[in-house]
């Protein structure tokens, strides 16, 4: 059943509508899939489509309610805008929102209220247009004990337990976790593109997690479920550009790199010079790799989990 969870009139002959599809069959548990907070991240669209299809075609296997929110920021998705058009702020830095604030603050407040109380929420992101990510779950260290066991069911490659940062307190995931609604953030792929393989893996992972929660009768083949590497503490190495230019690489992410190995180079297309050889400083799993070639000094090129 399609429900509108938040709505507001736009100035000229249009309403902003945030919708969810509620698929229900017995059971009292509620499992929510949300995506589309950033209008340039599309991996979640494929996951929502496939889950909708599988659940509706196999409704007898469902025990509980699955709610699919494919577009928390419909204006952004429709206009290839990362944030909310007409607002300067990132939607995922506005939670918990407020009833007294701007239209955007009202909307995020309604979203949060609608999700609150779910047994689990999966918030699907796909990096941005600059970086390509392997399928991973990101968890704040303060919620790791509760969330890591769930994350291991999701059939992804990597779990990154990161430090608490004050600025991240304004995210949907932090707000929901603070309200005792367990919320996992999935990052995979790259902005403006859909990787079917990653999407299919997450769909299987979501069904696997649902099975372990007693919400899906069929267990996905355990031998097909990936065993993720978990990274915590100071084990992630960031590689930032030291020169401005064009970043060229033949590497793929999800590879183990050796210390001293060249990951790519930054070149000048005007002079033909190589401005920087980008070298892996440690041995590790490269779980992030730059996808957008134009770089400034400081642009993130890669992240490596030290092995």
């Amino acid at each position, binding site marked *: 059943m399609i429900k509108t969870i938040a709505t507001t009139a736009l100035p000229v002959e249009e309403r902003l509508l945030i919708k969810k599809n509620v698929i229900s069959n017995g059971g009292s548990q509620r499992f929510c899939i949300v995506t589309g907070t950033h209008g340039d991240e599309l991996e979640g669209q494929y996951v929502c489509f496939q889950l909708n299809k599988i659940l509706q075609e196999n409704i007898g296997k469902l025990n509980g309610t699955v709610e699919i929110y494919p577009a928390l920021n419909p204006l952004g998705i429709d206009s290839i805008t990362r944030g909310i058009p007409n607002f300067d702020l990132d939607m995922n830095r506005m939670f918990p929102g407020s009833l007294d604030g701007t*239209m955007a603050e009202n909307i995020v407040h309604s979203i949060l209220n609608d999700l609150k109380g779910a047994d689990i929420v999966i918030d699907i992101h796909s990096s941005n247009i600059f970086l390509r990510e392997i399928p991973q779950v990101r968890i704040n260290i303060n919620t790791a004990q509760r969330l890591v066991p769930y994350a291991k069911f999701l059939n992804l490659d990597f779990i990154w337990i990161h430090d608490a940062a004050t600025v991240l307190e304004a995210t949907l995931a932090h707000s929901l976790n603070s309200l005792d609604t367990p919320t996992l953030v999935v990052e995979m792929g790259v902005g403006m593109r859909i990787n079917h393989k990653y999407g299919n893996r997450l769909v299987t992972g979501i069904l696997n997690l649902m099975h372990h929660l007693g919400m899906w009768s069929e267990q996905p083949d355990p031998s097909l479920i990936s065993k993720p590497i978990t990274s915590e503490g100071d084990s992630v190495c960031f590689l930032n550009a030291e020169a401005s230019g064009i970043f060229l690489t033949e590497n793929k992410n999800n590879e183990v790199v050796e210390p001293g190995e060249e990951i790519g180079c930054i070149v000048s297309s005007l002079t033909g010079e190589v401005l920087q050889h980008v070298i892996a400083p440690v041995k590790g799993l490269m779980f992030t790799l730059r996808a957008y070639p134009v770089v*400034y000094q400081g642009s*993130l090129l890669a992240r490596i989990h030290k092995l």
Partner: protein
Amino acid sequence: MKQEILFSMQSPFRDTFQIKGYRFGQGEKCLAIVGAMRGDEIQQLYICSQIVKQLCLLEKRGQLKLEKEILVIPSANPFSMNIGKRFWAMDNTDINRMFPGYDQGETTQRIAAGIFKAVQGYEYGIQMASSYMNGEYIPHVRITQTGYEDVKTGGYFGLPYICLRKPLPFDTTLLNYNWQIWETKAYSIYAGENQEIDNALCRRIISSIFRFMKRTGIIKNELPSTPDYNSIIFNEEELITIKSPIAGIFYNFKKSGDEIRKGELLAQILHPCDGSTNAEIVAPEDGVIFFNHNKSLALQNTPLFRICASAQYF
């Protein structure tokens, strides 16, 4: 005056990105003024440029007796301003959400680190700021409440209002917040809107900054007088926000600084196609308009006005 390059960075294809500082006097670090950090802060840039001009004039006449040092950074983000973007053109990040910065981090973190290195350690810091809410503000000083704020000295500007703001989590990456944490008495100045230069308003702000400099003993000179107020100090949450009950064309009769009476018509929301009046916006209390929305379209729940109610102060 000494002009210095405080931060520079090569660009892939554009000219070198540079942040320039204008340093007056020498010795103890006394006052740093930061202007446009976003590409649409043109009024903020103009005000800083006029401060540099006045200080240069006084210096040339031998009238600037400085025993301490002033640093003015009129433009901290020329790249965005030159191409009409508010935020960093490459990734749309906001330099003013990157403080205290990180010199090994992302591009805007490096820029923020470069700025912060230059402006750290001053006794006073003034930022010509702007808000994410589109609109016009009554001239005021805004102070983030970090526990280190010095509100009394904020009164030296002689602006009509001092607005105290309790920081939200995302405010902890602002320059103003970090300045205070690193023991600079920090003040953000808001006035009017960003993209248009309002000469009379700018004169008031420039003169209030010179008044601040005189009253804190930084300089002996004062510019020709503009109104000098005993600032009303209030917490931001005391402002009454009037939101648009409906979306449509915002037909406004009032602007920031106007005194209003309870029940007075402030604006109308018109139907975008047939022109009929869909809502009338009336004043809920006597007071002064502190902020007004200044776009011709309003979304439902857009804050149209923020009112400083007089009952609390008179």
